[in-house]
């Protein structure tokens, strides 16, 4: 059993709805996609979904080796990148390869990945996340109500530019989720738009009206002083780490008691890296939450982590060229028994997307908005399809 080659397909997709946050309040509906397939001499392929496009540079580290020795390959690739820089695209490429190898390992064992990783059931508690800055109040309600109808009891709202708007929309989210529970779990996410002290001022005022479960990225990703400062000053937990890439970038957060929840994903150097971070957080007594992803494929990993709380689902409609074997019901992502990640490719749809890329609203690679970390640049009429607060 040997790794013989790889195939990387990149494409542009147009999602079924827009997504946005404090840095992209006007929203986007175009998203780049990448499908990596690792090939073997026995015809079985491993697949992963992500943005890693530097695969060719890293492939010699695994070529000709047995794909089942995946943790050893992670170690070798990590060492391989010692000087090249195991950050950014290099780390995303490492992660894409690692995830595809885990898919392959599970397929070779004839098991869904959640089972190969030792989970008891393919079932993960979920929370709804609208990435909803550019949704109208009506669409916001409709999204969270649709999620509540699937049993979801917690939601995360994008906030940060209009205080009165944030309060009103938190109320809308809570009302929509109350279909499923009397006490919805409410989270907010400002995507590093605020400084730490701005976050404390804003969140403290929100907490006069709402009980929050966590606030996400209330300071910069690496700023363990700032994140800790926010955590100590507010009632809610602080969640962070989604924009870091590895355990070693997360180290300062763990060692300095700076995050109460870690947001993890396949972009944290693959399934192996993701699990490493969860294990490390477990050692420090910190829970983890799996981030949203196409086809919810990382639910397999979340199901097997000892300290996972709930996984983010966005459901913007970005699986047009994919098949998958999971569904949301009773507030959980319920995963089937298809081997590996259970993800397949609709080749004809992918080919059409590649031949004729869809047009729409796009702003990749999602830059930071003016004023971030220093002052809040107000929204202008027409930036978002909801009513802005009046100046005092």
């Amino acid at each position: 059993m040997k790794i013989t080659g790889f195939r990387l397909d990149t494409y542009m997709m147009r999602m079924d709805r827009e997504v946005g946050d404090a840095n992209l309040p006007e929203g986007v509906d175009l998203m780049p996609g990448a499908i990596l397939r690792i090939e073997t001499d026995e015809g079985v392929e491993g697949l992963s979904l992500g943005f890693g496009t530097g695969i060719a540079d890293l492939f010699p580290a695994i070529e000709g080796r047995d794909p089942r020795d995946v943790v050893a390959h992670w170690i070798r690739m990590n060492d391989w990148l010692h000087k090249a820089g195991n950050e950014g695209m290099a780390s995303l490429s490492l992660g894409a390869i690692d995830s595809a190898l885990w898919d392959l390992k599970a397929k070779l064992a004839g098991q869904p990945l959640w089972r190969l990783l030792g989970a008891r059931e393919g079932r993960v508690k979920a929370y709804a996340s609208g990435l909803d800055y550019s949704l109208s109040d009506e669409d916001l309600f409709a999204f969270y109500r649709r999620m509540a109808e699937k049993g979801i009891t917690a939601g995360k709202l994008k906030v940060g530019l209009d205080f009165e708007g944030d309060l009103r929309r938190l109320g809308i989210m809570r009302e929509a989720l109350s279909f499923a529970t009397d006490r919805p779990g409410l989270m907010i996410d400002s995507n590093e738009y605020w400084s730490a002290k701005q976050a404390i001022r804003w969140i403290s005022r929100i907490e006069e009206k709402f009980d929050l479960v966590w606030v996400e990225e209330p300071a910069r990703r690496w700023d363990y002083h700032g994140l800790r400062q926010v955590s100590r000053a507010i009632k809610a937990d602080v969640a962070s780490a989604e924009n870091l890439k590895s355990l070693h970038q997360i180290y300062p957060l763990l060692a300095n008691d700076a995050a109460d929840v870690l947001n993890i994903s396949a972009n944290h150097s693959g399934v192996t890296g993701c699990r490493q971070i969860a294990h490390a957080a477990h050692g420090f007594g910190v829970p983890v939450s799996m981030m949203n992803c196409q086809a919810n494929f990382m639910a397999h990993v979340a199901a097997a982590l000892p300290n996972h709380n709930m996984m983010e689902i966005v459901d913007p409609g970005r699986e047009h060229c994919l098949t998958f074997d999971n569904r949301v019901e009773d507030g959980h992502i319920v995963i089937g028994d298809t081997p590996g990640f259970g993800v397949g490719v609709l080749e004809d749809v992918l080919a059409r997307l590649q031949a004729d890329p869809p047009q729409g609203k796009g702003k990749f690679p999602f830059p930071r908005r003016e004023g971030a970390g220093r002052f809040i640049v107000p929204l202008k009429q027409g930036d978002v399809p909801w009513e802005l607060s009046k100046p005092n």
Partner: protein
Amino acid sequence: MEDGVKIKNISITAVPEHPDQALVSLMTEHGPCGHSICDVAVSEAAADLARRLLFGEDARAVTALYAHMHSQDNKPAAAIATLDMALWDAKAKGEGVPLWRSLGGDGRSAYLISDDHSGHAARITLTDDAANDLDAIAAAHKALSRRLVEPVIMVMAPENWTADIAIARMQEIEQHFDISYIEAPCSAEDIEGQLKVSAAVRAGVAEGRSFSGRQQFAPHLKARSLDMFLLNIHEIGITGAIEMADAAFTYELPILITGSAGNVGVHLAGAMPYFAFAEKSVVPSCLTTSVHCDNGIAKPDHTIGNGLGLHT
């Protein structure tokens, strides 16, 4: 759930000529049988625990069952570790691969540490006789210097030492020899003492041999009080060892896997990002193992599962 992999029974077999040891076999309905070796007293607790918590469960749910067993009150950690080892064996057999491959490792060889100079690194148990200790270190140094360019010597402090005693004795030893690690220089919970020792002596502080779960490692992680983690798979289990090896990787702390039945701990080497050494155990002649020790190096072969069993 497919019925074939449901856990249905457990048996305990005495290890011939080693009345304190037992082979624990965890049986599934039609699937593979997982083996583990432990103390006889532990095997009885393991059988009791298996009947209460594991019968009827899917044997492949190894990490979840480990967490489930550890969530109980008054948990017998060594019994959990025994069952965890048997579950991993059954899992690897179900996949048709050696344990090291099931764990995602590559079956790499491991440098052995031993107290008989047969490893690539030596462990010396210190005593209250300083002169005698220096002689023992000198002998180990001489034996090892033929193998590695820089001999790795680990000393183990007697149980009754405090941080201050360890510092005084180590400073004396370090005038003559380069020591890589000192194990347990003070009590395992004495974080201030460990930090004090690590600051005052050149050797790294190693601890964890008696730790059975993440709760015991947590304060050491928060304080970064250790320079090496000792992971004992008969206490913390294979699942716990993998978890804590990842946690130690936060600081890139090296891992030493302490002695294990049939040296089965060597299977974990390739699946730990900062594995350093495995401690060598003597394997009784009646016991089968897939780990082969030669010239200070241990390597697992391609036997399916963990290789543990009794010669018939």
